[in-house]
């Protein structure tokens, strides 16, 4: 397939998700492997851009402290030495229409943006495994949090990240399951419910309180 895509001149994205706590080991070792496989994507497999997604072996999410740290360190190290196009994908633990889901998503968007990534892809709420538990509202907060972060000082970003991650990382076991798209939107008009808009406004207010100038 790859030979065909190359001959056709297609845009090629190579996806690879290192597992924190798997064969690679701890955060540092997993980051080293993440950098190695990212470079391999471009130099062995013809990637035009790379889609990362460090995932936590226990929780199956990309928004944990460890996986954020791996993704941010890998991106920052590659970004400092190359012009390669780097992306990351989103698997929060909480489901749609919950503040935790929106804050997890915003947290990763802040971290990805500050570490120099060029594309954010998501979001697969509820770990991306429950049917219809994904909606456009999660992408809205991902994009708005990224826009608000772009250009900020890294030291300020890290302070905000610390508060956000500390706020949700103790709640993985009891993470809210959230609602299906059919309960979050009017399916005929494709408009989010007032309930979801209120939850969104609450998450945005929290992010503003923490120092993120989000719209």
């Amino acid at each position: 397939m790859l030979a065909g895509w190359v001959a056709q001149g297609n845009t090629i994205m190579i996806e690879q998700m290192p597992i924190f706590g798997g064969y690679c080991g701890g955060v540092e070792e997993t980051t080293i492997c993440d950098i190695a496989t990212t470079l391999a994507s471009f130099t062995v497999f013809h990637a035009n851009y790379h889609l990362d997604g460090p995932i936590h072996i226990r929780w199956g999410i990309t928004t944990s402290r460890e996986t954020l740290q791996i993704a941010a360190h890998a991106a920052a190290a590659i970004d400092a030495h190359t012009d390669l196009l780097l992306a990351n994908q989103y698997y929060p633990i909480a489901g749609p229409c919950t503040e935790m889901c929106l804050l997890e998503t915003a947290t990763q968007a802040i971290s990805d943006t500050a570490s120099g990534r060029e594309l954010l892809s998501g979001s697969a709420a509820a770990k991306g495994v429950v049917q219809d538990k994904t909606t456009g509202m999660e992408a809205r907060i991902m994009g708005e949090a990224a826009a608000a972060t772009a250009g900020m000082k890294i030291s300020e970003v890290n302070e905000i990240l610390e508060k956000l991650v500390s706020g949700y990382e103790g709640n993985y076991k009891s993470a809210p399951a959230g609602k299906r798209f059919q309960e979050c939107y009017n399916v005929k008009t494709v408009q989010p419910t007032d309930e979801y808009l209120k939850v969104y406004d609450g998450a945005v207010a929290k992010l503003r309180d923490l120092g993120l100038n989000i719209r």
Partner: protein
Amino acid sequence: MAAVRPLNVFDAYNRNLKGKKVTEAEWDYQIIPGNAAKLKEKYNIKFGKEIVPEDKDLKERLFQAGLEMLVTTGIYNADLGRVLTISEEEVMEGIKKTPKWLVLGENRDAVRFEPRKGNAPRKPVIQGGPTGAPVSEEVFVQIMQSYAQEAVVDTLVNGVMATIEGNGAATNTPWEIRAMMAELRAVREARIRAGRPYMAI
């Protein structure tokens, strides 16, 4: 030694065929963890509390460690049970050959995808979608539209249609192909409904 040329897909295939034979267990349980741990020690890599690194020297050492991991360890082809190796010079030539920017989408819905360099003031490209999560065929268009209509979203990534005409879209069955074609039609319909017919998928 200078690289002959950046590796292409045919070079990589041939190199895979001649690679060193290694069992998957040896690769997973010895080679990967062993080499990663050695390089962590060699380059003195230890993360602090920061999620996003600020230390320029740490970023330098990390890059070198990752590059050395690729060059000294290679890439495992599980189907062949062989390891492809690549030299540092070939890696650097491959990086040089990679396009520096791309255009995603067409016409008025096109977006430039280019290096930001650190935390530049320009926001990243926002690709909205379920990112492979399962989606009912009955609401597939509506779910994709919910992303396409968001002002901050630049491109789309689709979910996986859970069924097609009521049939599971299992791998290696004809339904898989039918579901994939239906997904494509549905995402195109969603971006048209959102008034962004040329948005990248």
